[in-house]
């Protein structure tokens, strides 16, 4: 939404998701809200992931499948007693399939105040996909 639209924010329940794969650690998994947009050069993904730190964030791109996951560390200390619980905390996980060919070398991810900005530069159509052959 653009800045000039000053409407009131509504409560949006966090989207819990059924585990995409079996989890190794117990806990809830939520699907983060995202904005995805593109221009000629790149595809940009913005995701709201409050509570995720850079070290807990995992971005994986393989076979045109983009996977974003974020671990959240619990904030409550053991001594605290709950009075009112309106939202729950848990990991974030979401997968997207990309139709564009992405230049994997130049992917940029920034995490700022719990918002991820992921820039996925497109590979120019004219140039064939570069394949790096690594010597063993």
């Amino acid at each position, binding site marked *: *939404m*653009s*800045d000039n*639209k*000053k*409407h*009131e*924010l*509504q*409560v*949006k*329940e966090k989207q819990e998701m059924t585990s995409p794969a079996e989890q190794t650690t117990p806990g809830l998994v939520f699907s983060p*809200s*995202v*904005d*995805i*947009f*593109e*221009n000629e050069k790149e595809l*940009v993904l*913005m995701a*709201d*992931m*409050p*509570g*995720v*730190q850079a070290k807990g964030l995992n971005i994986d791109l393989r076979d045109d499948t983009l996977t974003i996951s974020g671990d959240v560390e619990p*904030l*409550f*200390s053991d*001594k*605290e*007693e*709950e*009075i*009112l*619980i*309106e*939202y*729950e905390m848990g990991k974030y996980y979401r997968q997207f399939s990309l139709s564009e060919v992405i230049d994997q070398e130049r992917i940029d991810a920034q*995490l*700022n*105040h*719990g*918002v991820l900005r992921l820039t996925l530069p497109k590979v120019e159509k004219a140039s064939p996909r570069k394949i790096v052959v690594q010597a063993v």
Partner: protein
Amino acid sequence: MIYRRFFDYPSLGLRSPSSEFERMRRQMDRLFTDWPGQRDPRVSAGVFPQINLTEDAGKFYARAELPGIAANDLEIQATSKTLSITGERKIAKEDEGVRYHRRERDAGKFSRVVSLPTEIDPDKIEAKMENGILTVFIPKAEAAKPRQITIN
């Protein structure tokens, strides 16, 4: 009423697995909401932001998920028994010519008041924003703190 509908249904054996699942889900939902003494632990006030309130002996802790909101876009006020959080979430406008595939994130103003169970000390409230999560530390008023009573 759910039962009647399904018993009246002529082709009982030909229900799709999804509707069968849906029926089970509704029955489970009803079972849990009707459970005596059971209440939904997540009773939301329906006002943004959602708040989790906890306490220990000396303080209350109010937490809210406010991703992408800078500390100076947020205003916290307190009286002796209430805490109010107002602010605005801004989402920077992207360049002209971008095409959107998804737009799930929202911008806008918000204002929320929380009543606290006991008197608080509004002068000593502290707040911090960390990774998009706001934590407000609210010390209880001296009169409201629990006291250890020694028996002579």
